[in-house]
C-alpha cells in the first residue's frame, strides 16, 4: 500500500460501506442450513425425477416439496448441484 494522508484514509474507509445486513445474515447462516441441505442432496441423489426438477427450477421444486425458502440453503444447493 502506498503512502496516505488523512484525506486518503477517509476515502478508503468510505470505500467499504457495510453490505446489506440481510445478505450478511444469510451468508452467516450457511452452517445452519447444512443439515437441511444434506437431506435435499441425498433425496436428489436417490430420486432422478426430483433432481431433474431441482436443476430445472430450484426454488419452485423446493417450494413444491414443502421446503421453506431459505436463501442460504438455495445458494449452497446451487453450488452442490453444479459440482455433481
Amino acid at each position: 500500500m502506498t503512502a496516505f494522508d488523512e484525506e486518503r484514509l477517509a476515502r478508503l474507509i468510505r470505500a467499504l460501506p457495510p453490505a446489506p445486513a440481510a445478505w450478511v445474515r444469510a451468508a452467516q447462516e450457511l452452517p445452519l442450513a447444512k443439515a437441511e441441505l444434506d437431506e435435499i442432496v441425498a433425496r436428489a441423489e436417490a430420486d432422478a425425477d426430483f433432481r431433474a426438477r431441482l436443476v430445472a427450477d430450484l426454488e419452485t421444486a423446493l417450494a413444491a416439496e414443502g421446503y421453506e425458502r431459505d436463501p442460504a440453503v438455495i445458494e449452497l444447493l446451487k453450488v452442490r448441484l453444479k459440482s455433481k
Partner: protein
Amino acid sequence: MAQTLSDSQLVARCRSGDQQAWAELVDRFSRYVYAIAVQAFRLPESDAEDVFQEVFARAYQHLDKLRDDAAVRPWLAQLTRRLCIDRLRAASRERPAPEEELELAGSEETLTMLEDALTVHEALAAAPEHCREILDRFFARDESYRTIGDALELPAGTIASRISRCLVRMRELLEGRSQPDSPSSPR
C-alpha cells in the same frame, strides 16, 4: 468488530466447524465482496446479491480446498471477480457486449483501491474502539454528526475534532508509529 484472529486462524476454525468463526469470516470480508460487485463491476443490486451469496456459499463448500489459509482474502477476491464476470457474460447474451469489454470490467484501479480500503478497515478493526466506531459511522455508514452524537452520547460539537484526531491516530497505526490503545487509555 475488533479483529483478534488472523485470517489463517479464522479459516482453520471455520474448517473445524466453528459456526462463530464462520460468522466472523463473513463479517470480515462482506464489505469487500460487496464492494467488488457493486463498485468495481457495477452490478445491479439484485445481481450483486446473487454473487454475494454464491461467493460465500462456494467459500463455505470449498474451504478445505484452500491451500494456504492466509490467502483467503485474494481467494475470495478472485472468486468474486470470476462470478461477477460470469454474471456480466450472462447479461451480455441478452444484450451483446464485446468480449474485451467484459474482460475490462472491474477496473484494476478500483480493485486495487478496494484492496487498500480493506487493509485500512483491518487496521480500523484493531484501532481503539472510540476511533473505530466514530470513523466507521461517519465515513463508511455516512451517518450525520447528530446521529453519531445520539448513538455515542457525544456533543455534536466534539465529533469533528474527534474524527480528525482519530484519522491522525489511524495514520500513525498504519505507518507503525503507534500501538493500539489499551481500553483504559485516555481519550
